[in-house]
């Protein structure tokens, strides 16, 4: 790189510290581990009131009348509001506007908000709820998603004609979206029987994925403060400030600029904060009472306060040649969206387009349904749609390998996609996709030692059952399994997705300093750190301040779909480049370089302007003096297309990500208990922005997939959640979470900033089927339901009702 013909740069620290590729400390890290970080539930204001929500006790009922007079008479109560008090639009929604701010006419799920109260004490607010009388006529719940999808006689959750129609989604009856995909002979109208004749070996399977919860730790909370201009300021833990604003303002009957949002401390999100919870309620009460109003759901309420992962039932058929070459695949998936659409249309779009996974299959037929039922609403959760499908198609690949007597990794390699392959929507994978190499690397990773060679083989912490002392080695069988998942990254299907960044460079106290302002939600993923790293790298300035995220700057889009490093990272990079150009213009203006000196030879490093030819030209402090340079930029990813509603063709995705997992488990085959011994991952992330945070994302996503494999399920019976607590909704503890070896590849995506690929979701896909495959390997059981229950392992019917 260094050339002898150029003068060595003088007084230049070679690279700016803590830029991209380094692992600087996250600015919120110390506060979080010492317990000092202010989460949204910690906010407090003099004079504030406490909000509380009356929720429907029934999954499905007609509302005959609401009497709030008893609640209003309670001293300390400032307001009791119902749907009649909603100032503007009565309904909102992420994709379809179908969800009432407060129920009117009917309630469609147990826990649906019916009335809200503001009082001077949370206990008073709670008591006021008990005094609201709601007269219900209970209706039959619509609990069976399959029936909702396929039976035209199934009762409707939403009355005919009550919703705006979305024909592009084949929306009809209880179907929120129906997406078929037909390729190869299926596109020409061939029947399954005809296509089946092309294969030597056929395997079928039915699989289920249970309703998973995001299980964030910070419950829904926020503070709404009425403003003098008749508007409202809302401090809120969310994933996307502007989409909240876009939904809240019409319901309040206010223009968007009168509803200003600032991000409050977010205690985890994982998709659960993509929909509104208490936002409109808090604003309504604040505007009504003229006082700040705070809401904090408790843990139980939180289970009713956010959407969950769609439970899915799937039917697959795969046909292959004797040598393992896949010939055809059919898939039918029914995704239970519950009472309101939320992200269901997008979930169907993902589940269908990625429905048979990262495999080359000439003839494919997919039918994907997302439906309304009177079950709890389901929507975004890490890896949505792709997680459910991945459990199905990976289970099928193992079944096919067993049928063929082939090694499951070899079968996957044989049919693996690569750069240039087309997925079933016809979209080309136009970025590196070294799937075969990734599988080989996963297989070649060293295996954990056998139990017998452990230093303390009888240490209960190494055994299934843990310290509860269920085995001293009896009944333990080891198993190994693999999983691969293909995930779309960034928003899909024609959405004009963008992010906005404002970057300011100025001299503060004699030093150059950068301020970065975006509306992007830091939900724990570490975006605040990455924004700072990008600014340091691009502007060669170490001192970077990240302003709080709010709606005073343009939308950043959602902290979901693994998209923020790409999108907001891209926006910060672009804004920094614009600032840099202006710095270089200033350099030219000052005559520090000759006219015609190409920008390409200039750079910013160590707080100085450097020329590749002449070394340091000037420090930024001297160049700028009192002047500040500020630029705002929007970053858009390349356009995508809607899937066509009849054959599901179209380049609907922005980017693809992939992770491969190998799981090693010890199973107590008599008791049905599992200890995951190792959960190793190979992932291609294009470019590592922050190694430590990347490891955190991969390990966290793997653990969330482990939860879905072995324990996490919201149990719903006739529309009623039976385990709305962390006592009975189990998530993995440290004793359930094995050491994880991570092998990261960096094949850059030419379309993405720095070549990076969203990294937060792909491991959530592959970890679940890898673990279940390992348990199958140890037990020989079919295990078609995720999570696997002890009953399934020992061959006893799971609990009913």
């Amino acid at each position: 790189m260094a050339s002898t013909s150029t003068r060595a740069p003088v007084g230049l620290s070679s690279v700016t510290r803590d830029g991209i590729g380094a692992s600087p400390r996250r600015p919120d890290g110390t506060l979080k581990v010492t317990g000092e970080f202010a989460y949204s539930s910690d906010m407090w204001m003099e004079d504030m009131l406490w909000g509380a929500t009356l929720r429907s006790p029934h999954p499905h009922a007609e509302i005959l009348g609401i009497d709030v007079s008893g609640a209003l008479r309670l001293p300390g109560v400032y307001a009791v509001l119902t749907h009649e008090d909603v100032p503007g639009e009565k309904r909102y929604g992420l994709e379809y506007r179908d969800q009432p701010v407060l129920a009117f006419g009917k309630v469609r799920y147990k826990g649906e908000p019916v009335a809200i109260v503001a009082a001077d004490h949370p206990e008073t607010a709670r008591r006021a709820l008990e005094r609201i009388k709601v007269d219900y006529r209970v209706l039959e719940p619509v609990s069976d998603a399959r029936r909702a999808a396929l039976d035209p006689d199934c009762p409707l959750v939403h009355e005919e004609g009550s919703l705006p129609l979305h024909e592009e989604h084949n929306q009809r009856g209880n179907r929120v979206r129906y997406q078929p995909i037909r390729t190869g002979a299926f596109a020409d109208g061939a029947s399954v029987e005809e296509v089946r004749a092309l294969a030597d070996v056929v395997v079928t399977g039915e699989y289920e994925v249970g309703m998973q919860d995001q299980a964030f730790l910070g419950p829904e909370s926020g503070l709404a403060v009425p403003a003098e201009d008749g508007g409202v300021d809302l401090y809120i833990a969310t994933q996307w400030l502007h989409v909240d604003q876009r939904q809240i303002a019409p319901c309040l009957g206010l223009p968007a600029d009168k509803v200003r949002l600032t991000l409050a401390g977010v205690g985890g999100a994982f998709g659960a904060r993509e929909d509104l919870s208490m936002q409109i309620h808090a604003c309504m009460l604040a505007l009504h009472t003229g006082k700040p109003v705070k809401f904090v759901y408790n843990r139980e309420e939180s289970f009713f306060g956010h959407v969950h992962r769609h439970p899915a039932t799937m039917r697959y058929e795969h046909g292959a040649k004797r040598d393992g070459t896949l010939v055809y695949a059919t898939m039918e998936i029914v995704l239970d969206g519950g009472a309101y659409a939320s992200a269901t249309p997008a979930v169907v779009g993902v589940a269908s387009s990625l429905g048979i996974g990262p495999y080359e299959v000439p003839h494919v037929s997919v039918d994907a349904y997302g439906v309304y039922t009177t079950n709890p609403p389901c929507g975004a959760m890490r890896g949505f749609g792709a997680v459910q499908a991945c459990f199905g198609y990976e289970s099928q690949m193992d079944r096919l390998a067993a049928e063929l007597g082939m090694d499951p990794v070899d079968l996957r390699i044989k049919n693996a996609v690569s750069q240039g392959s087309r997925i079933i929507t016809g979209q080309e994978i136009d970025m590196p996709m070294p799937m075969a190499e990734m599988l080989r690397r996963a297989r070649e990773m060293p295996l954990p030692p056998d139990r017998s060679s452990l230093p303390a083989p009888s240490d209960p912490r190494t055994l299934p059952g843990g310290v509860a002392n269920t085995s001293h080695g009896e009944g333990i069988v080891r198993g190994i399994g693999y999983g691969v998942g293909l995930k779309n990254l960034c928003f899909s299907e024609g959405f004009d997705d963008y992010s906005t960044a404002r970057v300011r460079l100025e001299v503060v106290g004699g030093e150059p300093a950068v301020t970065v302002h975006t509306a992007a939600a830091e939900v724990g993923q570490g975006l605040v750190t990455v924004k700072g790293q990008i600014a340091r790298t691009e502007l060669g300035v170490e001192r970077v301040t990240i302003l709080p995220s709010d709606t005073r700057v343009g939308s950043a889009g959602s902290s979901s779909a693994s998209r923020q490093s790409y999108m907001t990272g891209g926006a910060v990079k672009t804004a920094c480049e614009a600032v840099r150009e202006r710095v270089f213009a200033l350099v030219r203006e000052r005559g520090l370089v000759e006219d015609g000196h190409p920008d390409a030879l200039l750079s910013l490093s160590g707080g100085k302007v450097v020329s590749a030819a002449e070394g340091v030209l000037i420090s930024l402090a001297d160049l700028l003096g009192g002047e500040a340079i500020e630029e705002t930029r929007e970053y858009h990813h390349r356009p995508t297309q809607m899937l066509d509603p009849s054959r599901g063709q179209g380049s609907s995705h922005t980017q693809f990500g992939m992770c491969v997992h190998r799981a090693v488990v010890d199973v107590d085959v008599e008791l049905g208990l599992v200890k995951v011994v190792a959960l190793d991952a190979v992932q291609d992330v294009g470019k590592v922005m922050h190694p430590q945070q990347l490891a955190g994302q991969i390990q966290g996503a793997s653990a969330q997939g482990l939860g879905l494999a072995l324990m996490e399920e919201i149990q719903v019976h006739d529309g009623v959640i039976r385990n709305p607590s962390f006592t009975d909704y189990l998530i993995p503890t440290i004793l359930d979470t094995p050491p994880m070896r991570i092998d990261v590849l960096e094949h850059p995506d030419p379309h993405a900033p720095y070549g990076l690929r969203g990294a937060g979701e792909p491991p959530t896909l592959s970890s679940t089927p890898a673990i279940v495959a390992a348990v199958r390997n140890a037990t020989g059981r079919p295990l078609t339901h995720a999570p696997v229950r002890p009953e399934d392992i020992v061959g006893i019917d799971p609990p009913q009702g």
Partner: protein
Amino acid sequence: MDFLSPSTWEEALAAKSAHPDAVPIMGGTDVMVELNFGRRRPPALLDLTRIPQLRDHGPDDGYLRLGAGVPYTTIIERLRDRSPALAQAARAVASPQIRNRGSVGGNLGGASPAGDAHPPLLAVDALVELASVRGVRRVAAREFYHGPRRTARRDDELISAVLLPEPAGPQSFSKIGTRNAMVIAVASFSLALDAQARTVGTGIGSAGPTPLRAIEAEKFLASEFDWDGAASPSPATVTRFGELVASAARPIDDVRGSAHYRRHALSVMARRAVSWAVTDYRKEIARCA
């Protein structure tokens, strides 16, 4: 809600007598959850944390006396040899934070059928000491559990201690949960052998409306066990013991597991417990020889 905070045991008993509906609070790991979830709105809380003797433990006439407020952590760290099954159960309770506060007295006060302390107390034939201004009485754990969350404790009584007989043979406790730590029992089982009396004790948790004993299984194993030589019981004997334990359970289907699985798991735990007892018993014989 009143908060009564006596600093002596006498004051506590007087307060409980004056306010029989006051809810005692020790570690608070059950009480606070119930308050937070709004399941309970008692007129008064009776704070027992300031009474030093509730945290005492020591020998008492052939028993280990364990103050009702001794936290699980202390049992694990200091009393393992004198209460092996209970210490194993204590180790299986919740997380370090909860074990630092939670107590056997609290477990008995709530009397949840899933409480981990109950099966060992049944198996070893412990006594529960109850006190009121009217006096002190000791009730066998085996007589203590009357129905779902109902016990022999009267409204004006507080639990002062449990008394555990000196261990006279192998003891164990096992608990099934669907994760490897911090889980409420799906089913649990405790076994205690008394080599002097040549008796067997059992305790079953989370598989009936109350903690249960498997009395037939106890008698069966006591008669089949080789008390002199600790020869391995036949597979048929072990299987039969497992069946008898399972059949003593009265489980239901619930969110944590099916009745069928609970019975199955109990039979497996019971079989394993017998084989561990045999091994331990042999070691004991070898040591004494």
